[in-house]
């Protein structure tokens, strides 16, 4: 009987795994332990979602509506399309972080001449995006299974340039801290064409907001901050050159409105929400390779 505590622990563990975060009306299509996460693909009544990790409160990484596959289900995915207001016709795009592939798929469909490089660290995520989220790589959309920081450094070494860099590698549970430092942003900036821009999907809450904002300000100067009340995310759009005028943003939003309708992106409402106001504590220090406790900062209010 000396094994009783061990047995109890095993039962608890099994119970914890079995109950998981999945509600009764959800069906797990795939559960896979990858090198970096537990990946779940879950069918809900109106949508199919990619989730990482199994603990309660697991965040959706990406969702699609099978009856309306173009519709962007999440606010922050829609907000990322604000990048097109600053760089309306990108020829070359780098996307860091694949998820379900929503953004590269949309950009490839919207921009017939675009070439997209996608960097994703987790090979299992690439497989899942292809199998469950209809992500298709092609001549125009190429996936590189690599750490984004390494990819950016190599691209610089090879003299490659991008009109638009999309940073979407910060999942809710864990931020790769070497992808949020001033040095990384500086390297990213060097990858941009003179009129290029970077769009990052990041956090609007916690202390990290101040530190991250200050880091962007040091590297890019003034930048656009796009926030909506209903979301804990914010989208940063920063440019290599000077920021475009509000009038240019409006004109671009009118031009893009018809094409973005199918994606449910309220693009014409974004110009007035893209703020350049310093609404953070600018005395906070910027994140650097020497100092980047992003995950600890995100945990503190």
């Amino acid at each position, binding site marked *: 009987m000396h094994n009783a505590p061990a047995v109890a622990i095993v039962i608890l563990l099994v119970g914890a795994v079995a109950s998981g975060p999945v509600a009764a009306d959800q069906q797990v299509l795939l559960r896979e332990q990858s*090198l*970096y996460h537990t990946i779940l693909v879950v069918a809900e009544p109106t949508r199919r979602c990619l989730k990482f990790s199994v603990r309660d409160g697991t965040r959706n990484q990406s969702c699609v509506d099978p009856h309306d596959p173009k519709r962007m289900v999440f606010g922050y995915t829609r907000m990322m399309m604000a990048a097109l207001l600053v760089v309306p016709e990108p020829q070359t795009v780098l996307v860091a972080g694949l998820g379900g592939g929503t953004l590269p798929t949309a950009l490839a469909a919207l921009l017939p001449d675009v070439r997209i490089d996608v960097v994703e*660290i987790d090979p299992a995520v690439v497989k899942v995006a292809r199998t469950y989220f209809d992500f298709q790589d092609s001549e125009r959309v190429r996936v590189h299974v*690599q*750490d*984004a*920081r*390494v990819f950016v*450094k*190599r691209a610089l*070494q090879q003299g490659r340039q991008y009109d638009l860099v999309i940073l979407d590698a910060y999942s809710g549970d864990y931020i*790769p*801290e*070497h992808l949020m*430092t001033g*040095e*990384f942003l500086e390297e990213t900036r060097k990858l941009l064409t003179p009129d290029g821009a970077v769009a990052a999907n990041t956090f609007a809450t916690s202390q990290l907001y101040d530190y991250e904002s200050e880091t962007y300000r040091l590297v890019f100067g003034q930048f656009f901050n796009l926030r909506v009340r209903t979301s804990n995310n914010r989208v940063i759009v920063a440019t290599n050159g000077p920021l475009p005028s509000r009038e240019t943003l409006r004109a671009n939003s009118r031009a893009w409105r018809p094409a973005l309708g199918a994606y449910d992106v309220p693009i014409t409402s974004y110009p007035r929400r893209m703020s350049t106001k310093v609404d953070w504590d600018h005395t906070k220090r910027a994140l*650097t*390779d*020497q*100092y*980047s*406790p992003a995950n*600890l*900062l995100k945990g503190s209010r």
Partner: protein
Amino acid sequence: MSLELLGGRILAPWFGSSIYVWGSIITVFMLSLSVGYFIGGRLSLRTPSLAKFGCLFLVAAVILVPIVYLAEPVMVWVFERIEDPRYGSLAASLALFVAPTVVLGTISPYSVRLLVRHKEESGKVAGTLYFVSTLGSALGTLATSFYFVLWFEMNTIVAVLGGILLLLGALGVVCRRLDRHA
């Protein structure tokens, strides 16, 4: 352990934080410690003394601190020559962490030699040493990952580690002197 954790951060800007970067670092630390243990055991055969023991700390400190200055150029050099980040991170870890970790590894067996008076108590002494050193590793890991990275820059932490080693080494040498004068 504190150094091992920082190692991951030092390499990340050049080789990423993929699982193989941690694999490289852990491999190199284990390898270096094992070599250090072996050498430390051999060193303890040659008229061991507290002063020599102190010198091990001093040497470790002296080799540790250049990491601060050499890390960047070494990683640039490796990055330009090795495309595959698995072997890149392995090569960079070898170049940066072998020397200090080997020296740090010599300390444990040397301590056993200095502390054991009778062979009957050797097991107890070794046990206590393992206890102290592994407990220290645990606390170093915790303090570094929970607090130090939030309060200090990485180079500051490495420099302080070097400073502590320097202090301990000096203490060893001085104690030995005092002993002799007494």
